[in-house]
């Protein structure tokens, strides 16, 4: 029983890493970023490259990956997405436009990774050691990724709820029009949220690469998972995303251990449907008009 709970909690850390970035990008910057998974896989590749070519361990590699991904996503927002925000008359139009634009970005990033690394599978051994919790063995790399997920989620929470800039981010997430009335630079805040989301996703990728086998065309799997978690948690709410990740991680592990591993996907989508039926705005979502 403890084995199921611990495995489930470790898995939820992985899911939180996959989804936190998209929460910010979709919830605050209002960009439904379909290239989220590609950003994550790019994080995997950079971590792999740093580790195999320069023997820089993936945790230290985050110091390079996070700022680089931040700058890259900032540039993408300013160059490609801000014009869409400017011309969009309402949220619906922006959503459609951003889906189309990031769909293109998905293929661009995937193509670049194929060009750089080819289509093969990649994996490397980092902290693939036995780590004992309550007498059972778990992968140390998963434990480390979970710890990092906790640190990232806590840091994000403190930033959003305890700082001025974070409050501005939440204000934009709640209502961009009203936010601009109280002297918040909405456009800059949205860029910040998008870039921060991209950086989080890339860091998640770097951590996941220590225990996943990945290749250049795997991004869409992560995007799907992230989307489910973000919508379940309530768009733009970090606490909701963490809670949804926890629910999915434990539910999947429990189903796999107690019923049948073949039903993990059924458990995921079952939970998803329940949330959509009874709380369509998500666990922490706000009721909107």
């Amino acid at each position, binding site marked *: 029983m403890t084995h199921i709970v611990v495995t489930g909690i470790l898995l939820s850390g992985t899911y939180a890493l996959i989804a936190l970035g998209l929460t910010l990008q979709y919830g605050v910057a209002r960009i439904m970023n379909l290239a989220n998974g590609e950003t994550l896989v790019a994080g995997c590749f950079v971590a792999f490259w740093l580790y195999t070519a320069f023997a820089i361990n993936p945790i230290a590699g985050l110091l390079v990956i996070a700022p680089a991904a931040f700058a890259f996503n900032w540039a993408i927002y300013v160059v490609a997405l801000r014009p869409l925000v400017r011309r969009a008359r309402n949220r619906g139009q922006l959503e459609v436009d951003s889906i189309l634009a990031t769909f293109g970005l998905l293929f661009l990033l995937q193509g670049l990774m194929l060009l750089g690394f080819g*289509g093969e599978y990649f994996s490397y051994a980092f902290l693939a050691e036995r780590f004992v919790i309550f007498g059972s063995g*778990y*992968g140390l790399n998963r434990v480390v990724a979970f710890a990092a997920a906790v640190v990232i989620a806590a840091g994000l929470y403190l930033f959003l709820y305890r700082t001025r800039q974070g409050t501005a981010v939440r204000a934009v997430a709640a209502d961009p029009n009203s936010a601009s009335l109280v002297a918040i630079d909405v456009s800059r805040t949205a860029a910040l949220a998008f870039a921060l989301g991209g950086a989080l996703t890339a860091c998640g990728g770097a951590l996941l690469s220590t225990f996943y*086998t990945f290749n250049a*065309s795997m991004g869409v799997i992560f995007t799907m998972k992230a989307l489910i978690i973000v919508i379940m948690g309530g768009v733009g709410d970090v606490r909701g995303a963490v809670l949804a990740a926890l629910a999915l991680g434990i539910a999947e592990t429990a189903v*796999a251990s107690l019923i049948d591993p073949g039903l993990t996907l059924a458990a995921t989508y079952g939970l998803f449907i329940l949330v959509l039926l009874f709380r369509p705005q998500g666990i922490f979502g706000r009721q909107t008009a």
Partner: protein
Amino acid sequence: MQRRTLLKSAAAALIAAGVLAGGAQAQETIKIGASAPKTGPLAGGAAMTHWPNVQMWVNEINARGGLDVGGTKMKVELVEYDDQTSAETAIQNIQRLATVDKVDFIVAPYSTGLNIATAPMIAQHGYPHIATTAATDGVTEFVQRWPNSFWMLGTAKQLAEGAVQTIAKLRDAGEIGSRVALVHVADAFGLELVAAAKPALEAAKLEIVYEASYPLGTQDVAPIIAAAKAANPDAFIGFSYPGDTFALTEQAQIQNLEVGAFYVGVGTAFPPFAGRFGAAAEGILGIGGINIDDPKIKDYTDRHKASAGQGPDYWASAMTYAGLQVLEQAIEKAGTKDRAAVIEAIKTGTFDTVMGTITFDNNVNPKVWTVGQWRDGVFRGVAADGIEGAVDPVKKQGW
């Protein structure tokens, strides 16, 4: 006047250029089309097993002056398309190769699913279809339906029975007990293998103590290994794809699944598998295998390394190359680009390939490797149908 001269000489130059270009084109080429995944879920496997062999084959033929088609040396011109691991796109690609590019021959696509999906289209245009990466039980039926198709990698039944026989062999030698944990990926490949494995296990008096499937793409397999471990098996069989093959092995190592036989694959036969698990890979069994002591395979491996910058895998890579050699030799034997004649040549001919001498028995290659085992950094064949050179399997000693 001056101007007219200029125009004239320009025209003359153009004509001359045209004649020269025409002259260069006068050497007849043979157009070969190839469609396989470069993106999508199977891109990883195709980049390992399929594309490097196609490139190497074309380069080698052109380096020696081309194919000898009825006395004329023809260089190969390769037209390649990405099917995005989608059956629909793969079919469109074949259509395009046949009708727009008008290629002379087509290299079979990669994977069981894509080969079956494109078979009707390839048959419709009358091309020989030499499938080297498809392992399915449908071959007899497919040969009847598409007499232009040839199947080289064996059947799911052969592969699953090979796995079971290897474990039975270890049990009979007194190395392990007879409790088996059996898991598989829930798609056509996994289902076909598990359906063939279960009666074979029963016949060999091996007891299934844990059985489970998991969805395609799953890499979070800790609960599966934990449950398998709780059933206290002597052997573990996983019919898995590369991503889950690596994940199952890593979890078995971390949770210290103590079994005397650990079988996973597809993906076990990829050189990166040993790179990833190092000494822990020793003794791991997997789908595939080749005879690495065969000088032909050694030579092929060296050429592959030089050509692609990476070694071939220890299963379908060499078979893919052998399939291309069959096509090459059949064209030269038929001495024509006529597809029906080449199909006839494949049916009746004997071919000298890196996998040894190949003749088709009712369009099916009966000589296949089924199981390999990592031993001292190489993946040696331990079970095969119709081929000599298999070594005896050994018990896996811890992680």
